[in-house]
């Protein structure tokens, strides 16, 4: 475990430069926009010069890029940046939008786990049969489908035709425990709110998870097959263990690489899904970034990028640590 601690410390040390690197790249790219962002924020062509000048001063738009970057990061950290677009503090905006993205990710993940893993196991057990081929083709279709297209097809089916889902509003219960409505409703066993959340999020969640289902099925299949050809399986068979017992051992071994991939996927999805969120009008992190970009709000954009990178890097770190726990062979 001492080694693990050293590993975590080493990872945390590379954490910070990466974080600074990502935000700096985005900042540089966004800050050198040819258009004057202050003019856009002040209302376009007919904005008064005084307002523009004031905004320029307030947001430190002139001067050395490095100094401006430092100013922005410092102010973001101390929560002093008010987005010129939403007129809220950037962190407040992000905190308000994060639960939406989190719920979307959780629901997408439920689909991935419930469909991807069983499909992968079935494909591995029925290797080279028509089931295996079908699942393989399905996985390929999954990574080939433009999600925005699929989303409209399913909206047509479930909203226009069947009226099963809702497409407006974000259900929030009157109480708040964790700040995430889905978890709150589950804790309180409030099935009415839960139903509302599901009817709002189930389709976007499916769309977001769609690509992951196929990918997961493929990974589960391959790692399951790898585990089944391991020596210990041969040994177990030779000892005359029951098939079910053998599968239990295989499953435990096969899931090790799967956990890594799923962890990274979770981190990636938490970074916001601009396309899905836009189609379904969900006010999540991805949508926030898109709006910031459209309005040249690079302050909020850098803030959001910082936030996403933080989440993504943390997810990576957690996955690496988790790896040591589920696979005792891993030594740091």
């Amino acid at each position, binding site marked *: 475990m001492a080694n693990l601690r050293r590993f975590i410390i080493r990872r945390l040390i*590379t954490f910070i*430069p*990466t974080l600074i*690197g*990502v935000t700096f*790249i*985005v900042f540089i*790219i*966004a800050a*050198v*926009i*040819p*258009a004057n962002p202050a003019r856009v924020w002040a209302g376009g062509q007919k904005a008064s010069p005084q307002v523009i000048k004031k905004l320029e001063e307030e947001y430190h738009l002139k001067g050395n890029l490095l100094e401006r970057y430092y100013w922005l990061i410092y102010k973001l950290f101390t929560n002093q940046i008010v987005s010129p677009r939403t007129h809220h503090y950037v962190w407040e905006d992000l905190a308000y939008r994060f639960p939406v993205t989190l719920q979307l990710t959780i629901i997408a993940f439920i689909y991935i786990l419930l469909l991807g893993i069983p499909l992968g196991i079935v494909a591995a057990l029925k290797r080279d049969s028509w089931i295996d081929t079908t699942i*393989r*083709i399905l996985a*390929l*279709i999954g*990574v*080939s*489908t*433009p*999600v*925005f*297209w*699929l989303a*409209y*097809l399913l*909206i*047509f089916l479930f909203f*226009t035709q069947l009226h099963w889902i809702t497409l407006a509003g974000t259900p929030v219960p009157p109480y708040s425990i964790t700040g995430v409505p889905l978890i709150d409703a589950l804790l309180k066993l409030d099935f009415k709110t839960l139903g509302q959340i599901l009817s709002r999020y189930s389709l976007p969640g499916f769309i977001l998870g769609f690509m992951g289902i196929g990918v997961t099925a493929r990974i589960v299949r391959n790692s399951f097959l790898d585990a089944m050809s391991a020596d210990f399986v041969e040994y177990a068979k030779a000892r005359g263990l029951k098939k079910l017992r053998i599968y239990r051992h295989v499953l435990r071994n096969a899931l090790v690489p799967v956990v890594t991939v799923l962890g990274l996927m979770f981190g*990636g999805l938490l*970074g*916001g899904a*601009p*396309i899905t969120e*836009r*189609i379904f009008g969900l006010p999540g992190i*991805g949508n926030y*970034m*898109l709006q910031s*970009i*459209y309005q040249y709000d690079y302050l909020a*954009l850098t803030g959001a*990028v910082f936030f*996403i*990178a933080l989440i*993504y*890097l943390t997810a*990576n770190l957690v996955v690496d640590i988790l790896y040591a726990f589920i696979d005792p062979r891993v030594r740091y």
Partner: protein
Amino acid sequence: MEMAEEVYEKKILDKISDKVIDGIAWLMDKVRKGWKRRNKARIDEWKLMAYAFNRSPPGLIGFTLILIFLALAVIGPYIAPFSYDLPLTAFDSTAKLAPPGKVVTIKPGQLAEFLHVKPGNYTLLLGSDDYGRDLYSRILYGARVSLVVAILIMIVGPWIGIAIGLVAGYYGGKVDEALMRFTDIFLAFPGLILAIAFSAVFPDRIREFLAANPAVRDFLLALFALKPQHAGAMASLISVVVALWLVWWPGYARLTRGLVLSARENVYVEAARALGVPTRWILLRHIFPNILGPILVYLTLDFGGVILTEAGLSFLGLGAVPPIADWGRIINDGSAYFPNAWWLIFYPGLMILLTVLGFNLIGDTLRDVLDPKTRRSIEFKIKKKASGGK
């Protein structure tokens, strides 16, 4: 022991692929004398891969899909009944958001002459959009846009990564550490979101660049099959290309580095180093050609992903700008009329799906074909029982 020519049970496809591979070998021999003799084993291996590929239905389906896509992209703009920006509402007011199968009449007159349209009755195969532009024509033009965008991205983006991977892998040590940490920065962030941030800020600069370089502008306009007045709209499309250059390389850096690490342990590299061959020369002449194979395969596989990502960015309104016919953009513009004008979403999306699926099917099959284990098993399966049986 005599080594007889290996005899395979050949199907018609195998004969065609034999001819193609022989043709390539013949060409290489023309360029470099003696290439065919020196690479006999390699040519036979290629033929064997082709046989294996020919025996995989998904691979063949993918290959067909891609052939159709390439054909549409090349000849599409010439066979399209209308130009991508022709508003049919100018002739027939019912042509606005016309459903598939609607017949539009174009009367002879000054307007038809001015817009270079032949008068007559036209059936709008796939319907039309809110400006009365023929969706079928726009999808044909869109194939060209997709292909050119994908190629433009692929001839630059991955090569940044390949160069970084080559240098990092060969030099190792601090150079490797620095370059890989730099790569990690890009990997530490979802590529799509980074691309969104990038593509939003380039258009103005690219517009200036295109205005300053008319030769480049005209070349690109010809590639995209666009009219000169849409050079401004093209700038946004190019900005997506540039944005994807900047995010499409980290995977290649990792891949190349790994390949170089194993390739540089080869004896011939050591021999070259002992002979005092300059490092640059070793990298380019001895290592690079030997790792090119897997890189090229990976590049081909990646085409589908590039097309899908570009369509996604266009859907978000960051790539192509109207009136450019881009599949993702058509869906974005059509979504305002959903679900009534379903064809504006259904058909372009189907085209994206089939194209990307084609590339992925080929990729999936290639991965099998390139795996020596599966290849040998197929080799045994198709070998005639010439030596043992008869």
